[in-house]
């Protein structure tokens, strides 16, 4: 699509052609990954534009840049686009789509046509929801809380809800495809404990997709039914219960957080060993902790509802389980850190992104402890502290990992190398910009600035100005890769098959891979991450 026609090389998956039909009717998982990538990038920058306008408005305490209604539409647009059009499909639908069959040693996903269908369904849902939001405006917030969303907002709510509902189908399709592929299409010898952690995390993610998304569908269905027919299951005026909505919504939306972050953890688990030249520390613990997170993620949703009128006892239970989920997350962090020990560390772009991920994930995760602690959450919930916390995980964690993965597998996906120098500059810029943007929001939240505020008391201005200034740096860091990665497509040097000297089946095929992924079906005889120290770093007793 956006890639120039000079790329195709004999034998690569680009070879079948560059006509529109070759892309829009393809069932090749690698091409579908590109379809997703180009759509997701578009949505990312739409959501980013909304974020820019939000930060611009918050530069001053008064509502002097846009009206309150416009502002509310902006943060709703930002939330809906970023959550459903970008974060949920981000890594699974792009890198996951491209890499899962390669990592398993398969020719394609189990259901290639379902895979293509999922993209079309995704685009349909996104188009509907986007149309509702841009043409009419949606001001419910991405959370669709009732009775606000059912009684007081415009009819665009129904249209947008239908759009998100349709996107849910696409998510479920991807989930089913990945689960079946992982079970059924592993190459000979590719046993579960020889799978790369990225596959483990994709599997865990797919489980969450399949198990959580239908509950969102049910919830949105009830919202639309309320608006269209006037059924009142969530409507207190008719004896319904708005808290039921919150239970159902967070039953989906909390696990959805793990749809977003788990694949990021998988990406980093691939990159850290590669550039440390060391096997991943505690492979099985990292694999099990992914499954543990997927399971526990379903038992903690009530921590979004501590002050909502939920029973105190339920609050205590949910708080306890929320602390439990800190354990598998911590296990991963410790293991990643120790992977570097006694390694031979180099600082390629994707490694710098991964180290950035580690730092931001640690601080974002620790902020989660504050919010899981009941009495503290009463003060901090619905303030900017929450905003900062989940942006540290979603943007600092997830988007950073996404960029790390894109840079790591770029040579494989395109067959071209990009400029390492510019890559490193962009990685450091976005890290600094991110912290400048979001760290002040922790302080704002602690001081009590509520979220979704169009205007705010004067004493909060200094931190908001800092945050808005940081957003400029962050935006710069995110725009840079567009240029040097785009440039590499045309002028970048040709990539060798395995530029990083990495292990894993995807590096054993050519760059870019042939249409059927492998010239001959691979046979796996050993586990992942069999990294050896390079000659100059090898200890004496090993020589």
């Amino acid at each position: 699509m956006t890639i120039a026609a000079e790329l195709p090389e004999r034998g690569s998956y680009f070879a079948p052609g560059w006509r529109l039909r070759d892309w829009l009717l393809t069932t090749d998982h690698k091409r579908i990954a590109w379809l997703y990538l180009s759509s997701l990038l578009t949505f990312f920058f739409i959501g980013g534009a909304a974020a820019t306008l939000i930060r611009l408005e918050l530069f001053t305490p008064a509502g002097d840049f846009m009206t309150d209604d416009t502002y509310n539409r902006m943060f709703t647009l930002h939330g809906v686009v970023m959550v459903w059009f970008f974060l949920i499909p981000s890594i699974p639908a792009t890198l996951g789509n491209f890499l899962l069959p390669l990592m398993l040693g398969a020719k394609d996903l189990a259901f290639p046509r379902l895979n293509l269908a999922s993209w079309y369904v995704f685009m349909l849902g996104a188009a509907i929801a986007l149309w509702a939001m841009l043409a009419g405006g949606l001001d419910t917030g991405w959370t669709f809380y009732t009775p606000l969303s059912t009684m007081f907002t415009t009819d665009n709510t129904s249209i947008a809800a239908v759009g998100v509902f349709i996107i849910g189908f696409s998510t479920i399709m991807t989930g089913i495809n990945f689960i079946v592929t992982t079970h059924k299409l592993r190459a000979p010898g590719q046993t579960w404990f020889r799978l790369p952690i990225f596959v483990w995390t994709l599997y865990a993610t797919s489980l969450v997709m399949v198990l959580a998304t239908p509950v969102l569908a049910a919830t949105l269905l009830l919202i639309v039914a309320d608006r269209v027919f006037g059924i009142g299951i969530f409507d207190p005026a008719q004896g319904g219960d708005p808290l039921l909505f919150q239970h159902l919504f967070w039953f989906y939306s909390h696990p959805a957080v793990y749809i977003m972050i788990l694949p990021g953890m998988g990406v980093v688990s691939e990159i850290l060993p590669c550039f440390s030249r060391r096997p991943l520390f505690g492979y099985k613990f990292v694999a099990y902790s992914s499954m543990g997170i997927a399971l526990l993620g379903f038992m903690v949703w009530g921590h979004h509802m501590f002050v909502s009128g939920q029973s105190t006892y339920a609050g205590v239970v949910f708080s306890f389980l929320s602390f439990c989920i800190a354990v598998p997350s911590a296990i991963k962090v410790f293991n990643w850190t120790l992977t570097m020990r006694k390694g031979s560390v180099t600082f390629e772009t994707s490694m710098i992104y991964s180290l950035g991920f580690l730092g931001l994930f640690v601080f974002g995760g620790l902020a989660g402890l504050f919010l899981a602690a009941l009495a503290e959450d009463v003060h901090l919930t619905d303030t900017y502290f929450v905003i900062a916390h989940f942006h540290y995980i979603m943007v600092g964690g997830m988007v950073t990992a996404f960029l790390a993965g894109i840079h790591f597998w770029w040579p494989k996906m395109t067959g071209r190398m990009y400029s390492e120098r510019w890559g490193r500059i962009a990685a450091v810029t976005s890290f600094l910009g991110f912290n400048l943007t979001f760290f002040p929001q922790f302080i704002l939240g602690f001081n009590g600035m509520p979220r979704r505020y169009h205007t705010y008391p004067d004493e909060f201005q200094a931190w908001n100005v800092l945050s808005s200034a940081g957003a400029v740096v962050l935006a710069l860091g995110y725009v840079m890769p567009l240029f040097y990665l785009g440039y590499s497509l045309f002028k970048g040097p040709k990539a060798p098959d395995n530029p990083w000297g990495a292990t894993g089946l995807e590096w054993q095929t050519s760059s870019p891979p042939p249409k059927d992924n492998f010239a001959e079906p691979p046979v796996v005889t050993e586990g992942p991450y069999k990294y050896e120290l390079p000659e100059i770093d090898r200890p004496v007793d090993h020589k």
Partner: protein
Amino acid sequence: MLTIRSAVLTYVALIVLVLLTVGSTFIPMGVGNSLVNLAIAVAKTALIGAIFMHLRKPLPLAAMSIFVLLFWLCLMYGFTLNDYATR
């Protein structure tokens, strides 16, 4: 393996269960009615599953799917109703 005989027998059993469950509503038992209805619904599901859907000796993955569904339903109902029960 499904035969016409076993299929028809299952079908007859299902219809009998429908009549039983409808009949039971005419005997007032309070909460008991709901329990009986639920038990019969589970029995019907078991019949449909075991015979019609060939799940008597399921593949491990099919069995796992069913287990996962039941387990996740338990999570959803358990935690939500826990809130309502303790308000």
